[in-house]
């Protein structure tokens, strides 16, 4: 193995970006939308 190839770095960055941004987007929405159990 000759270290992390550029393709490997690209795959890792893409996967982390997709998962990370989806997670933070969802958590942000969950925490900021003021429609909780009490209001329904």
């Amino acid at each position, binding site marked *: 193995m000759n270290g*992390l190839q550029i393709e*490997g770095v690209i*795959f890792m960055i893409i996967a982390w970006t997709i*998962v*990370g941004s989806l997670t933070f987007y969802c958590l942000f929405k*969950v925490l900021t939308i003021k429609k909780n159990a009490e209001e*329904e």
Partner: protein
Amino acid sequence: MTQREQWGTRIGLVLAMAGNAVGLGNFIRFPVQAAQNGGGAFMIPYFIAFILLAIPLMWVEWAIGRNGGKYSHGSLPGMFDVMWRNPIAKYLGVIGLFISTIIMIYYCYIESWTLGFSFFSLTKMYFGETTFESMGSFLRSYQGAGEGFFSNIWTAYVFLLITLAINFYVLKRGLSKGIELLAKIALPALFVFGIILAIRVLFIGTPDPVNKPDWNVENGFAFIWNPNFAALSDSKIWLAAAGQVFFTLSVGMGTLQAYASYLKAKSDIALSGLATASLNEFAEVIIGGSIAIPVAVAFFGLTTTTEIAQGGAFNLGFVSMPIIFQKIPFGEYFGFIWFFLLFIAGITSSVAMVQPLISFLKEQFKISHNRATTIIGTFIFISTHFIVFFFKFGFLDELDYWAGTFGLVVVALIEVIIFAWIWGIDKGWAEINRGADIKVPKIFYYIIKYVTPVYLLFILINWTIQEAIPTFLMTKANPENIPYLWGARIFMLIIFAGLCFLVYYGWKRNKPQYNGIIKE
């Protein structure tokens, strides 16, 4: 109709659902699967399966659960009965109830190992077992499966008792004060522990730069992420990716539905379901992929790590990692963090596995929460003895295959067919979108109706041919184990028959309340 429990807060619900989904597999199964199946290229079928299989199933299960909750059903027999007014529907639901019960019976034993190894790390009990052979024998002697450090099974038994006690203490406290509170504390702790370990791994670099310059963390990440595009032409890789995505989200066992049944009729499920899936993926792809395999390559090199990966996830988690912790400063604390992280991942999943059965007993037999928890706790306690004492004969593996692997796909296929084809995709789509805080793209209407069932059918047919038939015929079984494997099957049949009887009896004495009372 009696008032059902409710989730206290929305974030508590999402964390409890994510806790249910995040399990040991996120940290020890995913990196092994990625490394064995094409590295970075594995992520292509993985994300395709995530979109076509995982997210649709997540929404389907939340929708089935919330709809069942409207009729005071917290387990699949009642939920299917509501959606399909056919006498057979509730018995199809029994498969889900059966699976979560069986998995709980053996999963709590595996969970107890992580608690035991947390303690052994802090007390440096395995320090000195520096080879694969000696650490392997330490583990096997703990499990009662071989000679070694432990002369009997009682240490493992004590940790099992502690694990069961914690599980049922949480469950006795109920939904909001038990499960939700646990999730609010445990899930953030799990992510903090995971990030601490991942950062520690990043700074390990090259432990022996003079003699073994290739043994480094960079090559560890390369092992997981460098893509092998040729592997994509192999159907095995696509099947492995679909399997990993499927197992990681805890779909197909009735636990997500049980949790969702405690939502109000107009609570959002679209955003919450997506948040659950993405939190699980964060734990798996970002944290899970950055710990065990990279550090194993840094300390053992690529060839040995490949052998470790082929030896299975437990080999990586319970044999290789303890050896590594002995080689790094403050290894006892990092060892504790690693195993306690696995314990948190385990307990937040195991409490979910009991919830469908608790709901079923409470709702169908009108018994109190305390009594239902005590009855199930006693039953699980007795049943785990088969796992503990027959472990070395493959009893656990047999249960894990039929309930924890094959059965999950069967339930998922049944539920998506009932949801999209029998109940009807239009009703199902309306249920997913009721109270939604995000707009679910219309393409998922067609994915749920056509793609997800076909995808699941493809997986089921392949696994039946490749694994289920040889496993059923015991072609690879050790002849000495065969009586115990049959024992495991009889044990499962008895539990399945018992649950069928309870459903039959429960429906007979307690006519479903939705017949003419609640109208959709």
